[in-house]
């Protein structure tokens, strides 16, 4: 093995300029592949994420336009008094979403953070397929200390098992002239039962009001940044009943057994209360938008993959071909074909790993700089340079496998030639 490595290093030390070019090509190939991969995810991400969730069997209710009320500033939610009992009277409705966002603080640590409260269906929808360390609070009984899941953000503030005394500032933007709701502090004892490494603290957007289907992105509005700590708590009706809705928008979920006709019939009953759209239509609109964006950006995927493939083939093939004379001398000196390939693979893998290390360091630094940049365009496009270790490793391995495959072509081409002939030709 040591001999193989020594010979591989000898390959490496010869023609430093050519090796440097190979490393640069590997770095650039991985770079542009990451850009294409992230762009594809950006286009189809939200559709893929939500397509098989309860949103497909739901009605997105958006309420009335705020400007239509008498004083033009407060939302008239009197219709909720009729709408909510109507949803409860229907057997085929699985539930109505509860999505609230409050500011809260940990009384013992004197630190503030965002607190998000969801009902079980919405929580399972938003956190579809995410990774969790510990338990899922929505599967546990709602008893004090109340189970919460924490996203630690930039700090490692909480761990599973911690008990937090939360001071929650409960306020409802959805107030009416007829039924005003005063803001109040709620002190709640909570226990951290789970830690998540993914933040998705979205609230339903209060801005979208129309009978036309918007995309999923239009349904939700963004939450805190990736660096901030967030706590997620199951909705507790007995305490937060007055603050159940952060806006007059809500998702009405239907049971899987509900038919198209059931949903349409219910939709016709609630038309008088405000704007509403089928969740399936929103998903269709999301898909349509994603398809349009893909078509519009197809040239990026097409040309990037084309150029990466050409570069990959060229660099692997010519690099192996460049070394065939040395390999031929090894053959003459009694080296087997298997050993020659092993030396080449050790050399090329080393070269590739060097390129991969440079790529990962460079793209991580670039993402960090762009996401923290004050330049708006850099900030917006920083997602293109995000490479989490798993994705980067998968891309790197795919590239290495393809490079090795193309690098085997010269070995395959010379397999029938006599060793002397090889030395003479080269």
């Amino acid at each position, binding site marked *: 093995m040591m001999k193989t490595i020594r010979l591989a290093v000898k390959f490496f030390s*010869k*023609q430093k*300029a*050519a090796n440097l*070019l*190979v490393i*640069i*090509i590997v770095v*650039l*190939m991985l*770079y*542009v592949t990451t*850009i294409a991969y992230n762009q594809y995810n950006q286009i189809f991400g939200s559709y893929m994420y939500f397509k098989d969730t309860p949103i497909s069997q739901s009605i997105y209710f958006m309420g*009335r*336009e705020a*400007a*239509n*009320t008498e004083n033009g500033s407060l939302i*008239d939610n009197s219709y909720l008094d009729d709408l909510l009992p109507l949803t409860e009277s229907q057997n085929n409705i699985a539930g109505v979403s509860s999505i609230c966002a409050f500011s809260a603080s940990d009384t013992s640590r004197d630190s503030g953070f965002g607190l998000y409260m969801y009902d079980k269906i919405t929580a399972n929808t938003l956190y579809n397929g995410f990774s969790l360390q510990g338990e899922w609070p929505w599967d546990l009984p709602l008893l004090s200390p109340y189970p919460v899941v924490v996203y630690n953000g930039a700090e490692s503030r909480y761990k599973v098992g911690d008990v937090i005394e939360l001071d929650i500032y409960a306020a409802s933007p959805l107030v009416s002239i007829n039924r005003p709701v005063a803001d109040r502090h709620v002190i709640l004892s909570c226990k951290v039962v789970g830690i998540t490494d993914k933040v998705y603290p979205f609230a339903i957007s209060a801005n979208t009001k*129309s*009978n*036309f289907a918007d995309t999923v992105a239009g349904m939700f509005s963004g939450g805190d940044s990736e660096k901030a700590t967030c706590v997620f708590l199951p909705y507790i009706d007995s305490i937060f009943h007055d603050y159940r809705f952060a806006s007059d928008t809500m998702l009405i979920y239907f049971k899987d057994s509900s038919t198209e006709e059931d949903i349409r019939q219910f939709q016709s009953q609630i*038309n*008088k209360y405000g*704007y509403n759209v089928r969740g399936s239509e929103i998903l269709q609109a999301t898909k349509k938008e994603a398809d349009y964006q893909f*078509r*519009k950006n*197809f*040239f*990026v995927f*097409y*040309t*990037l993959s*084309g*150029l*990466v493939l*050409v*570069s990959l083939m*060229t*660099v692997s093939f*010519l690099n192996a071909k*460049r070394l065939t*004379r*040395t390999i031929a001398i090894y053959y003459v000196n009694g080296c087997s074909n298997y050993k020659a390939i092993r030396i080449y693979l050790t050399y090329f893998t080393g070269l590739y790993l060097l390129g991969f290390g440079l790529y990962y360091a460079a793209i991580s630094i670039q993402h960090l700089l762009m996401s923290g940049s004050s330049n708006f*365009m850099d900030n917006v*496009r920083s997602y*293109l340079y995000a490479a989490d270790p798993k994705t980067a490793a998968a891309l790197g391995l795919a590239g290495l496998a393809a490079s090795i495959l193309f690098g085997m072509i010269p070995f395959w081409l010379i397999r029938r030639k006599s060793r002397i002939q090889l030395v003479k030709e*080269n």
Partner: protein
Amino acid sequence: MKTLFLAFRMEWSNRSQFFIHVSVLILVLYFTLQYFGAYYGTIYSSIGSQIYELSASLTSSVSNDKLRQIESLPGFQSVFLTAAETAEIDGHTYQVASIVGQLSSSMQLDGSDFSESDIASEKCVMLVPYAYTLQSGKNIGDSLTLNGTDYQIIGTVGESLNGYFFVPYTTLSKSFTPLGIQIALDSNKISQEQYADAAVKAGEILGVSIEKRDFDQEFSALLQTRKMESIFYFSLGTISLLFVYSYILFQRQKRLAIYSLHGSTFKRLTAILLSGSVIIFCVGFVIAYILGRAVNGFVFSHFFDYDTFALKWGDLVFFFVITLSIYLVVLFLYLRRFRRTSAIGAYRRKE
């Protein structure tokens, strides 16, 4: 001629290298041109298809005279007039508006538009938002009372105009108080220069100051959006070409050494390599460009209904000069190295 003949012989005697060289060159140039062609095309079309929207608040009615002057401007598309009056129906607020000129496709008109006679006779007809018909249960053909007058619904408009009831502009001028005006000029119909001038002229008619659009500046700003990705992309194409080219040149040093030993001067060797490279590059560039046009024209526009490939002559010359220069820099570096080595050394040197 002799130089060209020797260049040809050099390529002919290294046919497999020539094949690799030309194939990679064409493919790299093709994908690079395709990327930048589509990217530039997207920017050109986004600037080109823009509508110049000029908004102003009105203190009095816009005279028919002024509307005629605005209508005669090159690239004129429409005037959007809004009235001060709003209508409260079933808890929703609607603004009364009117459009002079061509309806945009985004209006999603269903039913019929106002006829010439509707406009001339200031008829009480109306286009309502589709969302309104869903909320109210009213349909095309039904009547709607506004400010004590009955209006007949003759069509519906789509989501982007959810808050408006449309009446003929003559009806709006007669029965309502005009509040605001938006003029839309379509750059697809006229040159960019005419388009920018027409907007300034429209501003003069309305007594509003309009700054002339600088298309070059807008193009540069849009070019910045993919700046980093384009740099990486261009670098990958360039370095790949350099790798192939340096490999080919390295492989040919033995032949060059033979020429040198037979008395060829360094100048002659440079001429042989330069003429061969430039010819190959020029032919490769032309093939790559034709391939790009063909793929976009036949494949993309047929299967994706989307063909934005657009490079102006200036852009093409720019790409040609830049890529050729990089190509020649490698040749120069190689020749410098070759000159420092003795012909015998170069002949004997294998790796």
